[in-house]
């Protein structure tokens, strides 16, 4: 078999219990954008229309961050609705991946809907694995499903050594955490 593409897009996963998964994905997005690459972020779980620091910064420079969610699941009152939002968000992700027009696509917090079974792990893994050869896909979230790990080129675990909320009761800080 010959590889027709000189440079293969990577699948990168940021997982683990420690902080820094989304933040590092944002950093990668900024780095790629700095190189003139086209980038896009899709956020699962985080509220539709969220206005975190990253959304504000992205808006200023014309980077697309699409959030579709109703917060984290243990706050959800209607699981059917929560599932439907995730399925809808995945349809947007899938379309963007398959279109091949974006060099770097970030699926933020995408491990959760897979782990919870709202999305089919095989479908997500095969869509990512069969992407156009130049496209990089970054997936973040705890407990990455083994099917996602198996198709990844790079997996980094953010190991929780010290956590300000757990250890000191300090809440997430604007600008730092969101």
């Amino acid at each position: 078999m010959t590889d027709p593409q000189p440079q293969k897009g990577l699948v990168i996963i940021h997982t683990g219990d420690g902080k820094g998964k989304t933040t590092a994905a944002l950093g990668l997005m900024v780095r790629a954008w700095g190189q003139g690459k086209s980038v896009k972020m899709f956020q699962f779980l985080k509220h539709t229309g969220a206005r975190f620091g990253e959304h504000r910064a992205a808006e200023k420079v014309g980077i697309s961050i699409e959030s579709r969610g109703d917060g984290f699941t243990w706050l959800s009152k209607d699981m059917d609705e929560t599932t439907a939002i995730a399925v809808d968000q995945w349809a947007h992700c899938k379309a963007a991946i398959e279109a091949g027009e974006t060099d770097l696509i970030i699926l933020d917090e995408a491990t959760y809907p897979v782990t919870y079974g709202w999305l089919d792990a095989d479908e997500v893994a095969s869509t990512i694995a069969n992407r156009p050869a130049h496209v990089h896909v970054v997936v973040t979230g705890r407990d990455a499903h083994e099917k996602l790990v198996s198709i990844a080129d790079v997996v980094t675990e953010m190991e929780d050594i010290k956590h300000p909320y757990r250890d000191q009761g300090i809440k997430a800080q604007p600008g730092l955490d969101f």
Partner: protein
Amino acid sequence: MADEFPRDNPGVTPDGPEKSAPARKGMLVVYHGPGATKEIAGLGVLFRANGRGLPVRHMRFKQAPKGEPSGDDLALETLGIPSHVIDAPTEDAAVELWSKAVRHVSIVQEGVLVLEGLLDAIAEGWLSGGQVSETLSGKDSFLHVIVTGEKAPSELLESADLISNMRAIKQRGSDAPVIAGIDY
């Protein structure tokens, strides 16, 4: 509600663990480990805080990630984020840059300061871990300081509010081609 940050730990109840903790605090954050991911986490925080309109500044105590031109530097410039970098890592350059960091910490009361590769300058013996820890944990402001590098000295591990170790579970081979926008 849209602006409220979702808790990332289902195991933690909304009320716990301590109600007396400050609502807002300038945090000392350490991202360390062997992987390259720790550096881009610093870049991500800068982007976020810049979006909030907070004063942000970047200082790099090591050589830029392999490859030219650096995507990080191009992005920082386009975003208008002030950045101080040392071209060749030496003790003199590290000491001089550290003095800029000390000055920043003493003057700027909020926002984010990223000290990329500072841990490596400490590991080289160019800066004292105890002094760095004292300066960064002794500040009484809302400034968040992000420190990165391979290994953190015990003083910083002790004084930091947040520490994540970036562990490589799966990585590309050392002969893999360097990719613009990913590696630099």
